[in-house]
């Protein structure tokens, strides 16, 4: 058994629920240290303890370079064998910087990890294959794709500590400003359910019918590249090879042909539903449930049926 660190990500709602799956993954390896940047929040220990965190370590540091440097110090201080975190936008950036500081091997967007052998599962070739990667080093760093490991409660006695690491001097990088997107929106990559619109959406306005359905499902709304390129949806909503990679438990594709590049971003979803007017559309050859029909009829009917539940 060894010491495993987990970087904890928060947003305006506090702890991201997807963190708990990462903690569960860490728990398999031994003593779990949760790294929380003090600026991100203080009252998290109770929730983290429920999933088995042994020590909550509050870290100093502002900006990506400082944070990576401080976290690397903490990894050394607590003699961790592995540092885990969510492979979100922020996670990928922070874990990559931290792995460079530690000169440690790094796997991002992993879909599984064996802490004992240092092997990681991850997608290669845009989701067409799964590679088993062996990492070699004194410390390993790994970012896990959100939702790939189911969180399990494992209450532990949690201790809080504060750790101060070195902050480098002028590092040549300054954060000038954060521009908020549409506030309050859940990030696609962390959604449990996603409903996506394809080319026939035909306008930004029509996405409303997906949003109404999403509200009933507790889902986030995605878009295909065809709709993004046509200006119906922002790129932050694009799923696929040049958009986001997602693994929700339910993915509902409305008016998607089922292109290889779109599937590269969502084929690891647990259940995929296709809604398409063309019974020969490729999507019906590679999804779980198919509805041959006009999305402008099927989606509102689905919304109504969900409301009635």
């Amino acid at each position: 058994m060894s010491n495993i660190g987990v970087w904890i990500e928060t947003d305006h709602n506090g702890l991201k629920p997807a963190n708990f799956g990462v903690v569960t993954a860490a728990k398999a390896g031994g003593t779990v240290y949760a790294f929380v940047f003090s600026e991100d929040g203080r009252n998290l220990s109770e929730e983290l303890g429920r999933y088995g965190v042994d020590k909550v370590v509050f870290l100093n540091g502002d900006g990506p370079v400082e944070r990576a440097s401080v976290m690397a110090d903490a990894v050394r201080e607590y003699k961790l064998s592995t540092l885990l975190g969510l492979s979100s936008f922020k996670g990928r950036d922070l874990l990559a910087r931290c792995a460079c500081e530690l000169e440690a091997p790094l796997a991002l967007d992993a879909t599984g990890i064996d802490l004992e052998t240092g092997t990681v599962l991850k997608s290669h070739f845009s989701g067409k294959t799964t590679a088993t990667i062996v990492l070699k080093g004194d410390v390993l760093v790994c970012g896990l794709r959100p939702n790939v490991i189911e969180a399990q409660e494992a209450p532990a006695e949690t201790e809080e500590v504060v750790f101060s690491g070195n902050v480098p001097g002028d590092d040549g990088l300054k954060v000038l400003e954060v521009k908020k997107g549409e506030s309050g929106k859940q990030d696609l990559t962390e959604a449990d359910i996603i409903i996506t619109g394809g080319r026939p959406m035909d306008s930004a306005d029509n996405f409303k019918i997906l949003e109404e359905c999403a509200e009933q499902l507790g889902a986030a709304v995605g878009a295909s590249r065809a709709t993004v390129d046509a200006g119906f949806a922002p790129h932050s909503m694009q799923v696929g090879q040049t958009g986001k990679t997602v693994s929700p438990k339910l993915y509902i594709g409305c008016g998607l042909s089922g292109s290889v590049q779109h599937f590269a971003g969502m084929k690891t979803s647990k259940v995929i539903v296709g809604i398409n007017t063309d019974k020969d559309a490729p999507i019906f050859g590679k999804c779980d449930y198919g509805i041959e029909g006009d999305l402008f009829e099927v989606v509102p009917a689905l919304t109504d049926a969900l409301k009635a539940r």
Partner: protein
Amino acid sequence: MKFYVCVKHVPDTAASIKVMGDADYDKTVKFVMNPYDEYALEEAVQQKQALGGEVVAITVGGKESVATLRSALAVGADRGILVTAGTVFLDSGKTAQALATAIEKDGGADLIFMGKQSVDTEGMQTHYRLAKTMKVPVANEVVSLTLEEGRVVVEHEVGAGDREVLELSMPCVLGATKGLNEPRYPKLPDILKAKKKPIQEMNLSDLGIADQADTATVAKLLALPERGAATMLSGSVEDMVKELIDRLSTEAEVL
């Protein structure tokens, strides 16, 4: 201004990948420039057209990677550097060391453009490793940039549609993503002209890079099976929707 663009030679994303043996794949498929590197290249070419200077495309890989350098030259890079290695490394630290040494040997950079990730090994880190080796700042997922005196101001995605505005001192490394620009398609005359542009070859021992063990290796590659055909629901729209909800909650247990 001296711009470098790191480009990787990868299988076309439309190609199907046939696994061979434990951890290899059939490489007779079509190879192309890594799609994200196209945004990096386009940006370098546009900046050079605006400010003057030179664009150098560089790749680490087998001899066949020269095809990707040629396509970079057709899009507007002035010359290419091929660092020959038996194959591309999975160990991004090694790739970064080769890139850094070659760039330094070639005279050093003002700005280095890379893609945010390669679509074959999906490492998402070579740009960070390169920046660390060269001791310069790095930003990833860059969707817009402005060059100013000795500094670059970029916007990059940080999730949920939010963007961060960053200032980096130059030289620096930038990881490009979709949205930064619209990569151009080379025209026939440009493709012909590209054949005459110089490509310099270097190998790892020219660069003084010792052959060290990889810190990451692929032990196994497994084709991810496509799902079979869908269970098609039938009846009126209302019937199908009702059946879908039933099946999603009882059979699939996701609702």
